[in-house]
């Protein structure tokens, strides 16, 4: 590795001063992502405006053996975009052009720094939308979504980011520029595009991404249902699933989450409920006309305290507002919290929630639950007070116990937030040594020099302590809320 100064002079051949950030202040702004407990100051931050600059930078890093981390908006909740010691950050926000949007083909080709919601905004005038909707969608980038295979509230029906990406142009960590996929939904040979998706920045940097767009949904039917217990809400989800309907979203919140959301946004959720279930049907008007009576019948006999149907867009928006604000709202109940996103088989949701509750009591910590019930993706929020000695350690242990439980039940340690820095020591809960060794060899094939986001995903060097303190700065500013 060259000295910092020597490497900086090499970077100066690519970037003008305004786009090569070296001063302490900028280095502090990029030292963390959404997992704010970790912080590493990068050697420098570069802000490319063209693909060529990115390619030249990667070639330089490879030649000089200097690690790099690509960064979109830095909203990763697992430390994915945390800088690497002695390395640089490639900030991709200025590569934010929508290069082409073809309504006939229903595809959009975008640069990696394009904001998720901006794709839907650009598609809307054509009656189209981009389906993946992580709740950070106002701020996170398509490049970050691709690298982390981001999800959202509609994954059971529509899948995750990789289900909506049909081509990727990327510069690999070796400097090789590749174009995987094309303008067709279909391909011949192994699916290289799909392998790049979810590779957590370990293969290289995506330069152009081709997204599949879907027609806007014609009609929605959104219902808010209150229950006396989480079990009853969970049972209603099972009944809906076995009826043969395929709702766009099914979300559950527990009492603590409801109370927090109510205090924060006054969404008008029923008082005193131990759980609320949000079910949203979507589709053609004719299809909904058939499904609505079926859904009401199921809900009416599900032991609900109250069933409230959104009569217009405004009421629908209010129901979702309560749900979408839940995380940040819970965060306000406590000075610090940790959020996990493990998955359990849906049929074991009830069992998993009881276990989470039991664990919370065992560790003497409050846990709020907000989750994607349709796909078994939990989001337990563990509340603790960082200033109380031993509280953080207890919270970390509890978080670990929940991940163990998810793996033991045959689920996953992460449904959408990725492994990153935070969960790398838990990868072994899901995969054998051989499985992990195999994945590492794949990684080595893409990045033999070990320069692209090294130290993430795989168990290895001493990991910094696991902790997520408080809200993301953007949440504090009220810009963001999380799911």
């Amino acid at each position: 590795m060259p000295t910092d100064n020597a490497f900086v002079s090499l970077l100066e051949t690519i970037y003008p001063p305004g786009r090569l950030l070296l001063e302490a202040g900028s280095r502090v702004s990029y030292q963390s992502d959404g997992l704010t407990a970790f912080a590493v100051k990068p050697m420098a931050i570069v802000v490319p405006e063209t693909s060529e600059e990115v390619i030249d930078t990667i070639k330089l890093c490879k030649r000089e053996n200097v690690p790099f981390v690509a960064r979109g908006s830095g909203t990763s909740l697992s430390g994915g975009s945390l800088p690497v010691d002695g390395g640089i950050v490639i900030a991709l926000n200025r590569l934010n052009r929508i290069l082409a949007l073809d309504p006939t083909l229903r595809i959009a080709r975008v640069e990696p720094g394009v904001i998720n919601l901006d794709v839907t905004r650009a598609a809307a005038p054509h009656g189209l939308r981009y389906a993946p909707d992580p709740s950070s969608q106002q701020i996170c980038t398509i490049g970050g979504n691709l690298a982390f295979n981001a999800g959202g509230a509609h994954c059971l029906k529509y899948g995750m980011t990789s289900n909506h990406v049909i081509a990727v142009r990327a510069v690999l960590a070796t400097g090789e520029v590749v174009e995987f996929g094309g303008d067709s939904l279909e391909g011949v040979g192994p699916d290289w595009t799909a392998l790049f998706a979810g590779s957590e920045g370990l293969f290289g940097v995506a330069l152009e991404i081709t997204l599949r767009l879907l027609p806007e949904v014609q009609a929605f039917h959104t219902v808010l249902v209150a229950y006396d217990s989480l079990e009853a809400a969970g049972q209603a989800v099972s009944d809906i699933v076995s009826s043969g309907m395929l709702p766009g979203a099914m979300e559950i919140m527990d009492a603590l989450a409801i109370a927090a959301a109510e205090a924060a946004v006054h969404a008008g959720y029923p008082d005193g409920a131990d759980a609320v279930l949000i079910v949203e049907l979507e589709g053609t008007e004719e299809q909904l006309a058939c499904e609505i009576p079926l859904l009401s019948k199921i809900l009416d006999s599900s032991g609900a305290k109250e069933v409230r149907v959104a009569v217009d867009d405004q009421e629908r928006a209010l129901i979702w507002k309560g749900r979408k604000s839940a995380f940040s709202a819970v965060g306000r109940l406590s000075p610090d919290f940790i959020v996990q996103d493990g998955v359990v088989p849906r049929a074991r949701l009830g069992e998993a929630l009881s276990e989470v509750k039991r664990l919370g009591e065992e560790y003497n910590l409050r846990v709020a639950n907000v989750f994607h019930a349709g796909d078994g993706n939990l989001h337990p929020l563990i509340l603790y007070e960082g200033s109380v000695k031993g509280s953080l350690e207890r919270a970390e242990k509890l978080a670990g116990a929940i991940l163990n439980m998810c793996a033991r039940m045959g689920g996953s340690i992460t449904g959408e937030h990725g492994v990153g820095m935070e969960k790398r020591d838990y990868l072994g809960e899901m995969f054998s040594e051989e499985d992990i060794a195999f994945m590492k060899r794949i990684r080595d094939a893409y990045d033999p020099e070990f320069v692209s986001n090294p130290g993430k995903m795989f168990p290895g060097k001493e990991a910094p302590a696991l902790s997520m303190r408080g809200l993301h700065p953007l949440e504090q500013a009220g810009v963001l809320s999380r799911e």
Partner: protein
Amino acid sequence: MSSLTAKEIASCLREEGVESSRLLARGSGTKKPLWDLEETSLVEMSGFTGISEYDPSEYVFTARAGTKLSEIEQVLGEHGQYMPFDPPLAECGASLGGTVATGLSGPGRIRYGGLRDFILGVQFVDGNGVIVKSGGKVVKNAAGFDLPKFLAGSMGRLAILLELTFKVFPKPEDFLTICFENKTLADAFDQLVLASRSHWEPDALELEADGRLFLRLAGNSAALRLRAESILNKLKNGFILGTDGANEYWRKVSNFTWNGNKARYAKVPISPRDLLRLDAAVNTVDVECRYGMAANVAWLSWVNDGTTKQVDKVLRDLELSGLVLKGHAGETLIGHRVEYSIQNRVKAVFDPENRFPPLS
């Protein structure tokens, strides 16, 4: 149940004496050009069968690679579920592993996604005979690299697939097919674009070279009738196909019998934008053609040996790649090829000793 075990399959790659020979898995053998290669021994997967896990309320099943699609479809059907991407050749005995290895989806692909969008997990044997697992058994999972999706289309050249986990959906109560008869393919294409951008949620959109467009709807019977009426008001020259006619059409499409049993059949992924250009180009050779998945794939079919070369040239000129599914030995990939050095390096991770045939 299975007469083979995963360990026995893995040990094929470790056996003394066969070290130098190349191996390839064969499912039911429906796609001959993909497995009938020179100097290659076959690992028969037809003894490695059975659905190992299926809980309808999870929308997920896991099955061994040699299991026939028809068996899976039947079991899913008993619980009102299905694989919405319509894996082809089910009636001909195609296996799940062969379907994944070929990366084949059918007409239903356009609504909820293709095979690569429904595969969740895989267990495979690599070229060293090591058994590796990737992905998961739940509908949502972001841990580790997505090897299950990657292996869709790997043609047995990277690994022997042992077990596969898939997401499934509730099967719609009913299907309804509308046929539009247009004078030209260009007219049909205009209709297709309208339908594909609409909120009618078409379940399938297939084009015939003679200008017919087949639009399939799926959902509740009553809803389908109403929806069909409003579509017929918007798009001209259409009529609702009777159940028998519709079934016959979709069966032909799925079984690749629309150009007879002897012909070769090839899959050529296209962008809808390529449709008319490709159609004009194949008119110069002796090839039958139909266009599936809202014009995202061209299915080409021809009978004469000599035609293969001509098709290859047409595709190269248009920079399109093709995969021959039914036909003769050694004709697997035709048309345009793109190669990057990363592909060889990844192949070397799966198969360092080249025990499986090369990727291209």
